């Protein structure tokens, strides 16, 4: 048997396969296809303090081997999430990572305090990289100073594992990774989406109502993998790798580049069972290669 357990900055996962925020709803949407309890963790849709309606439609567009989205953080707000969605997830027995999104440094702190006080929250993923909201969001992720400020504020309010989610839309991601690590992050997750757009030549208008959107899916994998590889060399904290993971082989690539665990995002849309297919494929790869502990893969390509 292969030991699949990994430790993501203090969060012990029974296996390295988790879900990417915003692509797996609050878990229940995929519960018909996936026994949630078999996953390493479920990361829920990005939450804000207040409920938000997000951007107008169209919000998604398919692109070559990828997709653009501009959801704009539609969510019921953290309180309704805790009341209405969290309990059943906790019952499912899977660790829940809550993805938090503030509109100010203080709001991030407040969200962290709420998570700290909520028993069912296993860890926090601090999204400083959402490209689809006008204030806040990605702006924090684009400079080491603001990224560190958000991290520090979150750290001040919680002892739970803090995973800071980095934006790929920067000149040097290692600089941001170093800043958030120094500010107290237990782990980093990368990548969020690449900023992109599409145009409808018939109407001569951008396809997305929001004009720009975030690019995800297999198309971005080479960029994501490169960033994981770079960040692995730059910081000591574990990495939650994501961006275009579509097959078990992709997930193994991410681990070898330096990820301790991986998140499956857009692939869920193409195959609702993607998480489990990938998990099974990774275990199979280890067996075939005579690997007894999956964490041996982490950083193997360096």
């Amino acid at each position, binding site marked *: 048997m292969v030991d699949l357990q990994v430790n993501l900055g203090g969060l012990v996962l029974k296996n390295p396969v988790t879900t990417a925020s915003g692509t797996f709803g609050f878990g229940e949407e995929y519960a018909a296809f996936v026994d949630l309890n078999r996953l390493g963790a479920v990361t829920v849709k990005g939450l804000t303090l207040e409920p938000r309606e997000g951007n107008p439609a169209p919000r998604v567009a398919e692109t070559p081997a990828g997709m653009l989205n501009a959801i704009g953080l539609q969510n019921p707000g953290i309180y309704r999430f805790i009341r209405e969605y969290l309990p059943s997830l906790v019952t499912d027995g899977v660790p829940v990572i809550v993805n938090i999104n503030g509109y100010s440094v203080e709001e991030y702190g407040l969200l962290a305090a709420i998570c700290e006080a909520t028993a069912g929250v296993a860890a926090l993923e601090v999204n400083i990289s959402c490209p689809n909201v006008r204030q806040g969001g990605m702006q924090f992720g684009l400079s080491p100073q603001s990224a560190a400020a958000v991290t520090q504020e979150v750290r001040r309010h919680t002892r739970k594992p803090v995973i800071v989610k980095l934006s790929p839309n920067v000149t040097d991601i290692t600089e941001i990774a170093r800043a958030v690590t120094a500010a107290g992050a237990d782990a980093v997750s990368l990548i969020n989406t690449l900023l992109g757009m599409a145009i409808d030549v018939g109407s001569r208008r951008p396809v997305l109502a929001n004009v720009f959107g975030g690019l995800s899916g297999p198309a971005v994998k080479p960029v994501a993998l490169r960033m994981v590889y770079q960040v692995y060399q730059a910081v000591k904290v574990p990495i939650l790798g994501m961006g275009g993971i579509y097959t078990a082989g992709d997930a193994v690539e991410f681990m070898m580049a330096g990820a301790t665990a991986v998140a499956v995002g857009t692939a869920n849309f193409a195959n*609702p069972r993607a998480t489990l297919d990938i998990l099974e494929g990774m275990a199979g790869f280890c067996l075939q290669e005579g690997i007894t502990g999956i964490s041996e893969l982490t950083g193997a390509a360096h």
Partner: protein
Amino acid sequence: MKTPLLLTAAPVIEHEQLKPDVYRLVLAAPSIARQALPGQFIQVRVNNLAEPLLPRPFSLARISADQGTITLLYRIVGRGTRLLAGVPTGQTVQLWGPLGQGWALPAAGGILSRQRAGWPYPPDRAVMPVYVAGGMGIAPLLPLAVEWYRQGQPGLLLYGVRSGDQLALLGQWEELGVKVRIATEDGSVGIRGTVIDLLAATCLTGRHPVIYACGPWPLLKAIHQIARGNYWPCQVSLEERMACGVGACLGCVCRGKIPQVDPIAEPVPWRHVRVCREGPVFWSDEVVWDG
């Protein structure tokens, strides 16, 4: 989940080209055929290459629980449907569903497939289903007509297409005893005009109609307005760009005037509701049509 969702590799049983760009595809999917309600849809993928990446949503144009098959009726629009058209009999496609909320029917003696909003007439009142289809909007209406037929009420189909040579499978409607009226843009069959003109010209006084409409957004909006002006209850099946189809990505929203769910929150004029989950069928006055 009320109805379980199924993910399956479904063999192609029949694949027929009806028109240069319209196909009829029969798939073996027994458990989906058993579960599905009229107005629901499925997500389809032809292969597992990364391109095209996303599944394509299609309505169930026939649900045969006994034969264990479902039928799709689709038009070639882009690369996804073009790829689908090339799948030969015997090969399988990936599909999952049944998805979304189907058409509302009276609960008594039948099914009320949508929980949210009630039926607008007393349960024992005989009503007349009026199907309004623009182009490929015909697809999700046939299984509904089958259901109404079982309840002894064949009703009326108003069907608008660009030209008479686009008409297909009308025989199936006639078999159900549905009265069919056609509008074509070029006047080649039926009246010259759109299905909006047909509806406007139809007198339904005293018939207790329920309008079931599917087609492009501007068409549905116009139908909603006519229905509203006449106090006819009206349901619409919406289309929106989708990624997941199961309610997880929030990609497919429209503005819905849905009943207040959160007693603590401020009342809001509308919410973004998911076409794939709260829809694709809505009562037309649940939808914010402007802006």
